[in-house]
């Protein structure tokens, strides 16, 4: 049933009719009902972006009465119906706006029609299709040209030298309504509001993002095709999706483990992306967390264990309490002791009865081993054994925390192969005012130590094959002998 409109749309597109023509089937009156059920809690009954949910959201819900829409494929300011439909369907990655593909397609078209009624003036001028320059495929040359253009047109001013959204203009940026707005972190394509495909990126570059500081670059590059070179460069900056894991693996190595986070060893280790959420269980709640992803690489060599953590933070901040600036902090949390039973401490930094053990690093102070009985009750463990080295550059921290595999007491965690050790992650962006319970965190993950990879996997299978072969030959022989008897 649902495929019918899709096929009809496909036919219309194939016939060269503008997709907008299809959108006209949307029924604003029907859309009103859907809107009030699904959209009004954030966007408000009046479409002004002042629903009850708006206050705690960053970025804030769109004010439809402005008629300004971030994502559009048009050369003028009017988005096409298809643009609105696509945003409703796919949501706005990196914001609180989810994709509504669960709604019937008809309802989504009706929503498009209804949303337009909030700013009828803005839709008087029909959308003019933006013509992108001729597409240039990705290649080493194109990426290099894109990098040159990135520097020439100074994308770094907002997006930072390496694209992590840490440029010098970052703190000044405001949206059309005067609210602070963060430049996109170009190394995280999956958070791009208008989608992560190359066409999506080229379109945003060419047409800009309305209502935000992001300007249109179509007429502001040296040659039109530079839009595509820039696109190819941006795509080369990071993975398409986070490389999330459900099991944290500590690889096995035989040599000494370097504490330098930029050492060669770490480049050979598999990145494991850990997604963090805001702490909203106890006050102060952190609805708009600053650090939502930490990349972990971890190894052990039978004596030591080391964790290599990478995370993006646009500001390097040490504690300056009088300026309401706190230190950037990251922590790995484990249950104390060596043989974790089924029961664990509460994931939110333990409680009065069951403490947790933290490997904690703080900008300006360095690493420490800490016992926590909840977020506000931290006690450093005397005689810390953890070695650490951190590097901050272009909006990114890289840190190594290294410690002995087996701890000398039960206040600390010990690690052993063949055991699933619970681990949780916590991070604070002091520059964004995060401290204490205002943090981002995860629940417990299982962590396992890889055993040094023996050569068993190369020995056993041929042995199995040879033995099977021998057995089969024997069976055939004996069968034949019996048969001929």
């Amino acid at each position: 049933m649902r495929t019918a409109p899709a096929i009809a749309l496909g036919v219309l597109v194939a016939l060269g009719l503008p997709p907008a023509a299809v959108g006209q089937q949307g029924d604003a009156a029907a859309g009103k009902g859907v809107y009030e059920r699904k959209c009004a809690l954030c966007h408000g009954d009046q479409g002004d972006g002042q629903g009850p949910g708006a206050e705690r959201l960053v970025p804030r819900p769109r004010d439809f009465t402005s008629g300004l829409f971030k994502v559009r494929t048009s050369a003028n300011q009017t988005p096409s119906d298809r643009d609105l439909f696509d945003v409703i369907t796919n949501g706005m990655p990196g914001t609180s706006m989810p994709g509504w593909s669960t709604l019937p397609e008809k309802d989504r078209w009706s929503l498009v029609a209804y949303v337009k009624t909030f700013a009828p003036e803005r839709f008087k001028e029909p959308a003019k299709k933006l013509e992108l320059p001729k597409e240039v495929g990705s290649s080493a040359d194109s990426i290099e040209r894109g990098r040159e253009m990135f520097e020439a047109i100074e994308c770094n001013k907002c997006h930072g030298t390496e694209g992590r959204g840490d440029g010098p203009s970052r703190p000044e940026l405001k949206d059309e309504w005067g609210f602070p707005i963060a430049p996109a972190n170009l190394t995280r394509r999956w958070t791009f509001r208008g989608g992560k495909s190359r066409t999506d990126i080229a379109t945003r570059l060419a047409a800009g993002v309305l209502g935000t500081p992001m300007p249109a670059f179509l007429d502001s590059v040296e040659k039109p095709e530079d839009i595509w070179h820039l696109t190819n460069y941006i795509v080369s900056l990071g993975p398409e999706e986070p490389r999330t894991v459900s099991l944290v693996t500590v690889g096995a190595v035989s040599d000494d483990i370097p504490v330098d986070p930029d050492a060669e060893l770490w480049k050979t280790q598999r990145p494991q992306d850990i997604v963090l959420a805001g702490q909203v269980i106890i006050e102060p709640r952190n609805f708009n967390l600053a650090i939502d992803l930490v990349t972990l690489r971890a190894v052990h060599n039978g004596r030591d264990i080391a964790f290599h953590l990478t995370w993006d933070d646009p500001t390097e901040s040490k504690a300056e309490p009088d300026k309401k600036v706190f230190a950037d902090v990251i922590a790995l949390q484990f249950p104390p002791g060596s043989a974790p039973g089924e029961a664990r401490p509460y994931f939110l930094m333990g409680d009065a009865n069951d403490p947790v053990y933290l490997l904690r690093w703080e900008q300006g102070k360095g690493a420490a081993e800490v016992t926590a009985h909840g977020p506000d009750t931290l006690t450093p463990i005397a005689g810390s054994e953890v070695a650490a080295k951190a590097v901050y550059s272009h909006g990114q921290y890289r840190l190594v925390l290294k410690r002995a595999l087996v701890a000398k007491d039960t206040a600390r965690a010990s690690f052993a192969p063949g055991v699933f050790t619970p681990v949780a992650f916590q991070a604070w962006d002091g520059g964004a005012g995060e401290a204490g319970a205002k943090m981002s965190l995860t629940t417990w993950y299982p962590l396992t130590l890889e055993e040094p990879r023996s050569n068993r996997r190369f020995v056993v299978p041929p042995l199995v094959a040879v033995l099977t072969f021998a057995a089969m030959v024997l069976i055939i022989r004996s069968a034949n002998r019996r048969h001929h008897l």
Partner: protein
Amino acid sequence: MRNALGVFSVVALLASAVTLIGTDSATAQGGGTIEAEVKYNGPPVVETLKINKDTQQCGTDAKIEKVAVGANKGLANTVVSVPTAKGQAPAKKTVIDQKGCAFVPHVVVMTPGQIDIKNSDGILHNIHTYSSANPSINKAQPKFKKVMTEKFEKPEVVKVTCDVHSWMLGWIAIVPTPYHGVTDANGTTKIENVPAGKHTVEVWHETLGKQTKEVEVKPGQTAKVSFEVKKK
């Protein structure tokens, strides 16, 4: 030939940039001059901001003059126009420059049409306009893009900002008459060759708002009109 008869209104501004706006004389036969003077009864409002980037071009301090008051309480940067006097648009394009990370002049006035936006700094700026009657613009102007030409077709006052340098602020007043000017540091401006007759003179200031006054222009004479703008 027409150039020879051209009339110029000279607008001297803070950065002493000079904008020349020619008006067509054909409609201004037997016109007079309006000399407008705008006074302000309060202290100047000037904010300064530390600059942390592009200091070579922008300097280390940005001076944001919200209310610029000169000698004799003259209020600078006030748009003066005579909307009741109709005439042909000037042939010369209006120009606004981005120089030293500031819009120069801070306020320009033009008739509906084109404006050249220059980037003399050789660093990235972005022209971000806030308007209601005209489509708003947000276009990047990287260092190699020395001039961009934009069009404003409907009368209104357009705010111009640059998101890269958030302190940058400029105003483009689009007025439906070629008889216009912007007050200089002393709060005065001269509008020449205004057709004779009774006219309305309108002044507009970015933070202090609008006022109008009636004035009678006689051929070959100078009509003085004086405004007193109050602190808000």
